[in-house]
């Protein structure tokens, strides 16, 4: 069951990766199955739904429509690459703040398409947002909150630490090590 394989080298989310790919496999196949990057989603496989949207050299593409063999030397950004250094991007934060993610399955594609839009048009109009996300289905129908998130992110572009959550204050427990209070 050995299949012909082809070595390619790509930069994915800032990291160089060398992979042996099957010549007929798509970028989506390789991202999900060979590189273990499952944030990019598989749905229609005909380039209609946008669930598999990634950036290739800063352009948004449907990963299901691109042969991985064409990607040798390309720079690819997936949803996993949007939160840089443990900080949510402004877009990701805005999606959280506006309750934009419902089931969440389309959200990676929506985020990548929105990032491509903001990279090109930092302060889009609502019509430009609708146009920029026209290739991304959301069956939960959360479009309004998604648009609001993109517009909010465009208006206020600072990243927010991902771990900025309140921490439990449970007092000083250092004086009672577990082994003292619960001996075997």
């Amino acid at each position: 069951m050995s299949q012909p394989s082809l070595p390619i080298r790509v930069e994915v989310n800032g990291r160089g990766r060398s992979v042996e790919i099957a010549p007929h496999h798509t970028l989506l196949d390789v991202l999900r199955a060979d590189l273990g990057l499952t944030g990019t989603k598989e749905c229609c496989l005909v380039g209609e739904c946008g669930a598999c949207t990634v950036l290739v050299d800063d352009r948004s593409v449907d990963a299901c429509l691109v042969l991985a063999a064409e990607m040798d030397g390309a720079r690819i950004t997936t949803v996993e690459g949007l939160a840089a250094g443990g900080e949510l991007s402004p877009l990701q934060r805005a999606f959280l703040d506006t309750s934009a993610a419902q089931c969440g399955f389309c959200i990676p594609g929506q985020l990548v398409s929105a990032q491509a839009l903001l990279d090109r048009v930092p302060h889009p109009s609502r019509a430009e947002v609708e146009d920029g996300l026209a290739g991304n289905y959301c069956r939960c129908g959360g479009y309004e909150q998604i648009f609001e998130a993109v517009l909010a992110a465009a208006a206020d572009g600072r990243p927010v630490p991902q771990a900025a959550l309140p921490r439990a204050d449970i007092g000083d427990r250092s004086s009672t090590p577990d082994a003292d209070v619960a001996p075997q």
Partner: protein
Amino acid sequence: MTIGQSPARVGGVERVTGRQQYVADIHLEDVLHVKLVALDVARATIGRIDASAASAVPGVRLVMTPADLPDPVPRFGPQLRDRPVLAVGETKYHGEPVAAVAAETLDAAEEAARLVHVEFEELPAVHTVAAARADGAPQVQDPALRPNDPLAGSNVLREHRYAWGDLDAAEREADLVVEGSYAFPMVTQFAIEPHTFMAAPSGDGITVWSAIQHPNWLQRVIADLVLLPLSKVRIVAPDPGGGFGGKQHAKYEPLVAFMALRLGRPVRLVLTLEETFQAVRRGAAEIRVRSGFRRDGTLVFRDIDADYLIGAYADIADRTVAKGSYTSTGPYNCPAVRIVARSVLSHTVPSTAFRGFGNPQQIWATESNMDEAARRLEIDPLELRLRNLARTGDAFIPGDTPADGEWPQALRRAAELIGWGNPPPAGRGRGIAVGLKEGPTTGLSYSTVRLLADGSVVVYAGTSDMGQGARTIFAQIAAGELGAPVEWVTVVMGDTAVVPYDQQTSASRSSVLMGNAVLNACRDVQRKLRSMAARLESVDEAGITVDAGVASLPDGRQLPVRDVLVRGLGRLGGEVIGVGEMRKEAQLDHPLGGTAAFYEFNATAVEVEVDRDTGDVTVVRHVTVSDVGKALHPGQVRGQDEGAAIMGLGHTLMEHYIYDDSGRLRNLGAIDYRIPTSMDLPLEMESDAIENGDGPGPYGAKGMSEGALLCVAPAVAAAVRDATGVAIRDLPLTPERVWRALQEEVSA
């Protein structure tokens, strides 16, 4: 207290970073990939299956045919055990699998599936109501599956009849009878996550992975089929990437379970979107409505005769017919009613639950009929509805829960938001409609809540969070009751080995039924904290209250519960465990087996513009107002409400299955079956919620995730008629259909 606020979704960070693991994202070591084998016909007798070429493909480990299954081939189904694990003897709809291949790679499985040679002889198929009900029509189902059923010789699976009042007397009283026939198409759930199924032998049992809405129900189905005790069947149910009803009941879980047990290895089946279209859909319907009115607009009778076109196997489709048609009088007081609704089997994709559960079909018919009545009576459509709407406490369906909301308030609000009463701009039209859905009729939910030593909380709830945001709601409830920040609450779901029983995630029940179970579990924790505080403070327990993270003592002192907890637990630490339960009991003499836990009520008003040259309908403004009791999380309420509305626009304007004459489904997949995108939205959309705190859920909440879908179609069609004068009684209102109707109007 975060109830009524909109904290970030629990699970939201995972969803925006790509770390949320849906079923297909889970990697199982040593997994085999499965591909289904189906014939490109609707119906055929299955002859010899030759797997030799397929088996010779390197990496193929099994070509599963009915011969590899127990004899007789096991069948399953939530209403009738009629669906075989693989088609036996005859394939009954386009896409029904007759075999399945398991191989080391997906490539090998796909190649081998193409090489499985199946001898077959095509048979005549029925895929319309007329064909299925014609004399001498081919039988979809083997009558032996329905012993002692007088209808077993026909394609009518069941006929449901509901009636009250004296219809004949009411007919004599009526000044006007309005009749019409209305058609609703087959449409599909189209969750963006295609259905995925995995199974693996585990010790002396089995584990099945599925984005199933009812994990405990699936556990029973698998246990019955593979003859294991429930304790040896583990269902792992990751959050579905959209469910919409399509993921309620077992589809290919039994197949992958048998394959995994036979192979002794994990197997994985990821359906394509096309295969998902051939796995789940909504029932189509043809509904005849006769309504009688007095001259002043009082509704005096309704006479409804409905054929719902279900598929080749019953799944839960007949229940959607029973329950959807039952409320065909809508939210109106109507003294005389006769409803007859049939579930008609056909050689098509088995229909199943889909957001709205049998109601959007009849609401399309009855509310369109109401609009026609308004015109003929020359009464404003809003006024006609207000005149007949049930008021709070009215027993509008005899023997069922009385009207449980201020429905006229919601309808008036929708009218106000669309500017009803002011004429629309030239060339535009407005429509308004109402929708009602019976909530869950029975329910049983358990929850366990653990208050950990640092005051953080773990909630266990068997609900599936498929986008409705149940995880967040339960976290909010626990946070509020136990005084923890929402961010300190972890909600564990989707694993029958860990999480206590829940009946199902359906009928917009979870905030109400599981929500109350979580609330009760939190109150159990509070009771235990109360006795802890009584012991610590040497006071009578009865004088202590614990709420929202504070213990109030008889002397007026207020202690943070975490102080009570830390001192009460003592040096060994530990935790406080609460259990909660919520039941909605069955009522066996009720036609549905139980009364409504609550009603979902929605009023929708739209303004449209119709391009007379192309027939294209633009929804200029879409207003949806749902009676939600209490918006526990307004951001999520809005998301569910708008989302349901947009989904409703799908079946209203663009979505429908197209079958060819031989019964093959011709528009499989995303290119030929369109759902609403950002380019298809109303130019303006407004969602509003009526909050009177009058629901049975926590803090007065009602279920609300389906309401805004219910009456989109009749509201839009009424607006199209208002704009053009043309009434259309078949959905969807595609440009072609609207254009043709306009041409006929011109030539008439």
